[in-house]
């Protein structure tokens, strides 16, 4: 269907993005490997690194377990109550943590579960003495559950709602009791998606940086990523940072292989409007149980969010908004986010064009197929080599060439771009594919190509998904602390970095106000994104 020139261009674009990403990631890894290798090997498995690795895995296992175990009753309850009052809003609430910068979420959690938080004050009044600590393992678990329980619940709910409506009619007509419905219908459906969900959440928790930085960080509660950051930023001990980075890459590689064995979960099919009808669970205990599960989940999610708003509103927002520090950080954040977003969209388009050109060949040679596969893999390379490791590599690489701070904004933008790439691909690839299926033959037969095709045929249709992808990527970059953590300084201050440094210097009032502002910006961007996505998935 493509003209020869188009195919050549597609392959060219694909090759360019492939080489670009491989170069950026390769340099970082090469820099790590070439730094005094003899010394590193002996550092790879010391008592210290073992402890860190053990804690990383332990907290990830526990976080995943708790998230999925508590998500299951919530998802079951929501699935069984299609006309629960405000159900749509409950489901939307469960999408919120995903769009919220992690640092902001952490602040909200501290507001509720912290030493002076609402929860401990309540427990104090009830006669217990400070039973919950937001710092250390318990805090990390709490925070991971806050972010991942809603994710798991949404994915489980989607799996339950994808079941044919006839199942519920049949089960009630057959007289199946709640336990039978669970055993024969709900659990088999959940069991199919739980491995995928578990893998996804485990990966997120094992590589979580910001939450552990803010809530853990002490020697007893540090994950690999945070330990890398600390050994570079505080102890300036590159060999240890390198050893930890290599461990990190090894660990994520193993997790990725394990995950690839299971089908990826998706939340398509979740109904926010007209829902299926259920005839089971009409008894009073069932109603109470479901209501309790849903209300507890709402409280667990909404209290920290409310705390962000309440604490933020106490700050003098206007003077914060007009302060020089805020304006400078906002400008820096915005330029980095816009560059990262545009880069991510362009790179995705290049990757898609490359794969399209290969798919268009009648008999692609082995090399062409390998090229196509590696293009797909490239887009998620950042999962294997996480931001802090990339940053570490480039940090070591650039140090001989002068002040790293000079290169820092570009590095942060590129790393943010790589972080956004998997999400952007998930939005753009299917959109472009369906668009090509619909218009490819017609355009080819009309001889439309080049600029006029892009302008008249592609842009009008793809504008929405492009905007969605861009706003997702920008939100991700705006809220990210992981990439900027290594380079943050008085010269390079992004909004999350500003919040974090205000927090570290105990100017919590400012931090709360800034957090509210940043949270609103990121949620607004994500909402633009989701609105666009819903639109495209409907037609």
């Amino acid at each position, binding site marked *: 269907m493509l003209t020869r020139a188009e195919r050549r261009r597609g392959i060219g674009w694909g090759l360019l993005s492939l080489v670009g990403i491989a170069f950026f990631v390769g340099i970082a890894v090469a820099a790590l490997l070439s730094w005094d290798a003899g010394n590193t090997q002996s550092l790879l498995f010391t008592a210290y690194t073992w402890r860190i690795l053990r804690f990383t895995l332990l907290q990830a296992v526990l976080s995943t377990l708790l998230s999925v175990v508590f998500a299951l009753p919530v998802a079951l309850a929501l699935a069984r109550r299609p006309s629960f009052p405000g159900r749509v809003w409950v489901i939307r609430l469960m999408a919120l943590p995903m769009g919220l910068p992690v640092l902001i979420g952490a602040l909200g959690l501290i507001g509720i579960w912290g030493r002076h938080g609402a929860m401990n004050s309540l427990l104090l009044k009830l006669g217990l003495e400070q039973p919950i600590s937001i710092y250390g393992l318990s805090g990390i678990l709490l925070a991971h559950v806050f972010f991942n329980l809603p994710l798991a619940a949404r994915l489980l709910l989607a799996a339950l709602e994808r079941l044919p409506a006839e199942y519920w*009619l*049949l089960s009630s007509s057959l*007289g*199946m009791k709640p336990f039978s419905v669970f055993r024969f219908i709900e659990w088999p459906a959940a069991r*199919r998606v739980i491995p995928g969900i578990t893998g996804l959440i485990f990966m997120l928790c094992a590589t979580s940086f910001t939450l552990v930085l803010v809530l853990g960080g002490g020697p007893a509660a540090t994950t690999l990523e945070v330990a890398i950051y600390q050994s570079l930023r505080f102890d300036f001990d590159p060999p240890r940072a390198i050893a930890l980075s290599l461990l990190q890459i090894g660990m994520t590689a193993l997790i990725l292989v394990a995950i690839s064995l299971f089908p990826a979960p998706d939340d398509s099919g979740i109904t926010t409007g007209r829902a299926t009808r259920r005839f089971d669970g*009409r008894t009073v205990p069932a109603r109470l149980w479901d209501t309790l599960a849903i209300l507890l989940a709402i409280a667990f999610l909404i209290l920290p969010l409310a705390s962000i708003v309440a604490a933020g509103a106490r700050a003098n927002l206007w003077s914060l908004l007009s302060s020089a520090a805020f304006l400078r950080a906002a400008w820096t954040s915005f330029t980095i986010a816009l560059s990262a977003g545009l880069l991510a969209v362009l790179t995705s388009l290049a990757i898609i064009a490359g794969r399209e050109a290969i798919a268009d060949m009648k008999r692609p040679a082995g090399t062409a197929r390998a090229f196509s596969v590696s293009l797909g893999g490239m887009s998620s390379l950042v999962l294997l080599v996480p931001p802090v490791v990339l940053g570490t590599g480039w940090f070591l690489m650039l140090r001989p060439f002068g002040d790293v701070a000079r290169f820092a904004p570009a590095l942060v933008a590129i790393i943010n771009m790589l972080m956004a790439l998997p999400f952007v691909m998930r939005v753009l690839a299917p959109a472009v594919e369906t668009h090509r299926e619909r218009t490819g033959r017609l355009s080819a037969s009309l001889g439309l190509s080049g600029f006029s095709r892009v302008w008249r045929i592609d842009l009008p249709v793809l504008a929405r998904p492009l905007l969605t992808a861009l706003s997702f990527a920008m939100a991700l970059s705006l809220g990210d602390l992981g990439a900027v953590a290594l380079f943050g300084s008085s010269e390079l201050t992004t909004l999350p970095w500003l919040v974090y440094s205000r927090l570290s210097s105990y100017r919590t009032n400012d931090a709360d106000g800034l957090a509210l502002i940043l949270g609103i910006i990121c949620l607004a961007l994500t909402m633009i994104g989701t609105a666009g996505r819903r639109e495209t998935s409907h037609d």
Partner: protein
Amino acid sequence: MTDGIALDKVELKLGAREFRFDCALPAGAVTAITGPSGSGKSTFLNLVAGFETPDRGRILIAGGDVTEKHPSERPVSLVFQDNNLFAHLDLAANIGLGISPSLRLSGNDRAAISQALERVGLGGFEKRTPGTLSGGERQRAAFARALVRKKTVLLMDEPFAALDPGLRLSMANLLIDLHRETGNTVLIVTHDPDEVGRLADHAIFIDHGQILLQARAEEFLVRRDIPALAEFLSG
């Protein structure tokens, strides 16, 4: 009063659509439910099955008032167009759920399941899962479950619509055979006038949520005085 199925001045409003059904269907017979798309055929069946409760009026099955009864308390079996079987359970479990909803089955029950499978031409298929069956075989398995349930009423919503014409014919024959054996009351929704002739003793025609005609099948098929029905019968 009849010992079949009676909808006694039943009224129901769904969204903006209003339904008004008042009829008595004979026991031990096959009644075809026909009508244009969106006329309310499935809604009619849902009322009998208990998935909809009337705003006004009563529903009686075999003389008993079931208006307020949960679907599981009504003496009915169901066969839909599709998804009659739980895809992850084998046929023995799928049919066994018709006997015991918690799948506590005795040796006798298992024998009954095997017999029912045999009866619908699926002997030895106990361990097969629905995904490995053809569309016709899946509907046969649904019949087998209706057999073991031994309910007096069988409700079917376009059970053959997804099958090709040849298969429809043999499934219709199977249904007739099973009906003769059990003497149950069958309501079958269909879009196909030929099927009415082949299967039904009686037929009703629904349009815009109301029953326009209830008649014996022979009479039903030659009526030309109702325009909507004439259109339905001509194809």
